[in-house]
């Protein structure tokens, strides 16, 4: 299966443009130590910027690992970015932004962060979580960092963490990476988390960014580069310019990383941060966002560096929110474009807590997309010429061995999409998808409580913001 936005000429042109911009415009580095390292490696000074020669960027790019593993707590739960398989995940935004523990009610579809994580643990098509820490305390007095800690303890899946800079505090970092089972050496070989390093501005690497990078690299934890692409009215316009800008930022980050910490595992991200839309009515919509995301994924594929495609990463239109169009389109085109990780976002409700139906619906979309993107085999058994000849124009295939042996794997079986007759659906209460998703979420959580005794939370918490 193949779908490409960019032809080879376009990919080469965007890559060449990225190299030229780094060579002629350069990076703004706000760390003297990093500047010194780059100069020693061959970078040149131009005012307050460092210009990166093409050969230095190419050398760094070739040094970046092409494939590695991130494991989850659950046995067999492992991501292998770069291995050629797309996996889907849930991106949890706004942790601690609103009253997370206020008025939670599973029956009505509002759950807190721990329930949200437990729910995701029970959804098979979502194979990782990405969590962004909020900056405020919730009404129960818990900080975003404490909630993040709860989430990390609860998940059995690999996690991508955006700690809003808290990782710069090594104490906090060590807390998240505190060895439990298995031993620390093993943990270092196969990390369970991927840390997000968001850029404040394109082509600017702050002291905090470099400090976080050093902490991650020293502890052999892979990092995620999330360039900011939608901020700044001056960068509106052609989407190819935004793709070029994202690629240039990626190349700069990779170069800096491989010089400061050779061999550091990196994942590129297409995530478009939310903050830049504050106060603006601008809504790019699913079409724009997904074209940008897919173009970036294809460029990451061109670089042969693992990539995470983030969908609905910015405030989409009302229609997108209501219909999940951004997720449906994004899941499909990003996996076709060769993304390693694809995520869709769940946001807290204004009144507090997360909508429990959203992860269930996201899981269902991921299942559908996985079926659509499955290879169409034309081997003898699949073509079934002999069977078609035997059945001929008269019969049917319902009770054939060929059907009975294969329908469970050939057909995708929905969890919440309704295929009943109208009469059966009506007699079951005539529920819409959100109601059925909420019910499934509750069933998963209730079942989980029956089988797994809940562990206490809140012990040994630290809040680096209090330091």
């Amino acid at each position: 299966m193949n779908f490409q936005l960019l032809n080879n000429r376009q990919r080469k042109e965007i890559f060449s443009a990225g190299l030229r911009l780094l060579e002629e415009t350069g990076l703004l580095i706000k760390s003297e130590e990093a500047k010194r390292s780059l100069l020693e490696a061959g970078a040149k000074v131009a005012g307050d910027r460092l210009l990166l020669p093409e050969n230095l960027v190419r050398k760094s790019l070739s040094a970046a690992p092409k494939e590695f593993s991130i494991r989850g707590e659950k046995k067999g739960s492992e991501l292998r970015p770069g291995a050629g398989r797309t996996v889907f995940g849930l991106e949890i935004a706004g942790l601690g932004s609103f009253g997370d523990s206020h008025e939670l009610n599973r029956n009505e579809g509002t759950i807190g962060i721990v329930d949200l994580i437990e729910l995701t643990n029970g959804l098979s098509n979502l194979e990782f979580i990405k969590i962004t820490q909020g900056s405020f305390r919730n009404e129960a007095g818990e900080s975003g960092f404490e909630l993040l800690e709860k989430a990390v303890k609860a998940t059995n899946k690999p996690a991508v963490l955006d700690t809003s800079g808290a990782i710069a505090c090594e104490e906090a970092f060590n807390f998240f990476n505190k060895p439990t089972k298995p031993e620390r050496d093993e943990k270092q070989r196969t990390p369970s988390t991927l840390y997000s390093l968001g850029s404040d501005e394109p082509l600017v690497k702050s002291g905090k960014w470099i400090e976080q990078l050093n902490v991650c690299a020293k502890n052999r934890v892979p990092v995620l580069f999330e360039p900011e692409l939608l901020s700044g009215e001056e960068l509106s316009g052609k989407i190819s310019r935004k793709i070029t800008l994202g690629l240039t930022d990626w190349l700069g980050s990779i170069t800096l990383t491989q010089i400061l910490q050779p061999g550091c595992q990196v994942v590129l991200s297409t995530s478009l941060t939310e903050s830049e839309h504050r106060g603006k009515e601008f809504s790019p919509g699913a079409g724009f966002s997904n074209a940008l995301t897919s173009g970036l994924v294809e460029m990451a594929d061109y670089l042969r560096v693992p990539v995470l495609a983030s969908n609905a990463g910015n405030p989409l239109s009302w229609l997108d929110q209501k219909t999940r169009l951004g997720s449906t389109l994004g899941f499909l085109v990003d996996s076709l474009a060769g993304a390693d990780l694809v995520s869709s976002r769940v946001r807290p409700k204004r009144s507090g807590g997360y909508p429990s139906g959203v992860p269930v619906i996201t899981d269902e979309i991921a299942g559908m997309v996985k079926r659509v993107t499955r290879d169409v085999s034309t081997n003898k058994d699949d073509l079934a010429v002999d069977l078609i000849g035997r059945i001929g124009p008269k019969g049917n295939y319902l009770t054939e061995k060929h059907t009975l042996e294969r329908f469970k794997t050939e057909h995708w079986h929905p969890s919440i999409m309704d295929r009943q007759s109208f009469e059966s659906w009506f007699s079951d209460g005539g529920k819409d998808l959100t109601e059925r998703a909420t019910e499934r979420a509750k069933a998963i959580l209730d079942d989980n409580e029956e089988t797994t005794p809940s562990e206490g939370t809140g012990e040994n918490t630290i809040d680096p913001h209090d330091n």
Partner: protein
Amino acid sequence: MFANQAENSAQDEFNRLRLLSDRRIQDIHKATLEILADTGVKIQHGEIRRLLRNNDCWFEDEIVHIPPGLVEWAIRQAPSQVMLYNRNGKEPITLGGTEVTYGLGPTLLNMRDHKTGERRRFKKRDTEDAARLCDALPNIDWVMGLGTISDLPSEYSDRHEFDAMVRNTTKPLIVWNYTSDGVEDVIRMAAKIAGSRKGLKNKPFIATALTSLSPLTFTGDALAKLKTLAENGIPTINTPAPQAGASAPVTTAGQLVVANAENLAGLVISQLINEGLPFIIGGVYSIMDMKTATFSYGAPELSLSLAAYMDLARNYGIPTWGTGGCTDSKIVDKQAAIEASLSLITSTLSQANLVHDIGYLESGSTGSLEHIYLANEIIGEIKSFQKEASLETDNLVEELKPELNKSLAEISSSCNRDKESPSSFINDSVYHQNDDSIEDWARDRVDQILESHRPEKLEDKTKAELDAILNNLEDTGLNKE
């Protein structure tokens, strides 16, 4: 493989979803030829059987075996491009290239009443409303009748369906008839609007869909319709609906072989009757859901199989008939949106020329104007994706460098600029601005359009001619309204 294929330029391969490699296309094509020759198709029409026998086919009872040479001859005869005009003989849509167009489906039994929310039998008024709504919607390119009219005698419902459409939209029409007499009557009505039968043939604003009966059967009625259409040169669409696991093998490849055999058999018959008849192939290829015995209109397998078939048809160089914008949901909710989106995305990216079945709820049982409106919006977003994806990569450095230099200089001079907190984004974003359900939101807009939109009227003389044809139909019940 075929001469028509050369018209597909290499550039088209970008921005197009491709599922089947050349080798797999060949595998399915060869398997299809084997089925047509060795297994054959059931032809329940004596005159057509004789026509086939006179052209190198052989038969036992009603089963006709079609040799590969005849199939490949028919593929070469069929036009690789078909133009479909509007009611005024203008603004043609081009079928056969990369153009993707969208429209409704036919023959639904029920309608979800947009005023009451009630599910009830389909009426002539529903076709009129659907046509008027589509006339106003920018992303719906052509119109189909949506349902089977139940409030008039069933034997003439197709003529009333055409009448309801043609009076309420100027957009091209895809017609569904139940008999060859119905085909003839609709051609008569359409010729009144086009000025003559010759005018209709030269600039057709109608195409007619018919279906083979899976597996591998053409009923007498379907063949009689095909004969009338071919003799009149009306663009004809074959739309088989093999159900994986029931009327076709459970595997995608096996399902495609059955569908392709039916399409190519129809193509052979059409070209034998009228060499060069515009013929369009595709269909509705989904699964029989084993839990509910439903022919699913929301299954991902529908998207997969149809997108794969577009590769095959494109290889033949024959215009295509796709399926999208439909759902198994009983109401216009998130399920309806997700299922409609998935099939619309794959239909669009695989470049199906005519994407039908927009507005279908409940696995092809019930129609909804709100769902049509929603699909129109979804198509708009998908088109926006495609537009954005048409990238220009010239002068990137020259355009970006001055902006970046300026931006970096500003940042450098204002150290430690505070960033806004990401945690309050919801307060002022477009998120949460409206708590309406999708259906309520769409219903408001449908109501506004139906109240305000006035389609271009037919001339009084033409209306009188259509009235005369309808009034001459025996016991139509039209005057009883």
